[in-house]
């Protein structure tokens, strides 16, 4: 099966993209409304939300270029020391930018 949509019908493509994306935005809460919240589910949910971020970041930290890895390292260190997210993010971006100039 190989369904092709011509890029002439760009409106249809955007509609499909929007629909799938909306399904993911609504899906989690919709599913949860059928699940009774007990202690185990509560623990699952809170652990999962901590894990989403780590799961996004792990491949960037290991497989990213030197600039990306140093940026994350710099962000982590400044976040621990200064406890100010914006300072940490700024330091990270500048680190990546400086390293990538060479």
């Amino acid at each position, binding site marked *: 099966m190989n369904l*092709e949509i011509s890029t002439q019908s760009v409106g249809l493509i955007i509609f499909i993209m929007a629909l799938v994306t909306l399904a993911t935005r609504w899906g989690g*809460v919709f599913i949860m409304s059928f699940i009774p919240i007990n202690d185990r589910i509560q623990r699952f949910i809170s652990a999962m939300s901590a894990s989403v971020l780590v799961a996004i970041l792990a491949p960037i930290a290991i497989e990213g270029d030197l600039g990306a890895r140093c940026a994350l390292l710099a962000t982590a260190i400044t976040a621990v020391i200064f406890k100010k997210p914006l300072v940490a993010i700024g330091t990270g971006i500048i680190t990546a930018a400086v390293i990538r100039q060479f």
Partner: protein
Amino acid sequence: MSNIDQELSKLNNDLIWKGFKSLLPISIFVAIFGAAFGLAAIQTGLDPLSIISMSTFVFAGAAQFATLELWGQSVSLIPLLVTIFFINARHILMGASLYPWLKNLSPLKRYSILLVISDANWAFAQQAFQNQKQGLGILFGGGIALWLFWVIGTCLGLYFGSVIQNPTHFGLDMVMACFLLSMVVGGQKNLRIICIWIAAAISSLLAYWYLPENSHVVVGALVGGVVGMLLKDKQA
């Protein structure tokens, strides 16, 4: 407990406005990335009206960039569906994680707020709830800020995109990653959380290397969630 939850689920114009303002700094970076998308989309051959509608109605940066990779004379439906779904599947987990607070709202409000859930406002709202603060204003107001700047950025990119032709060179691709990392570091830390993080990181990496593309976030988050379910809190 439920009284506290009711209080934390409060949502009014004041809280939404505060949330909007608290996400403004990061929104400016989002606008720069929106501009990079606008430029990339023009170069791929999309017309301006389509590009702006895509940013307006889809509002998912990574998925939109990935769609440009699939662009040609035509787009294959199945790869498009699979790519968009898996890149955005993290929204399912993010929405689910906020259910304990969203459930106190009427369905109309609940699903309206979710229209704008994305990485940054979710991470911020999540952190607020962890610290026993009201987070729905951040989720909704912050989401509106991110959406607005994403669309504005896209428009600017159509005309001034060449100024930032190479955002990677200036480290701008790292904005979201650095932001999310600062959220991780700022969150609570104990032995249990660290075990969960390690499980999530290892499973995410294994999925990244050995499973189909874009599956690593979902795999890592679910494995971390299961580990968290099995490890009970040891209250000191």
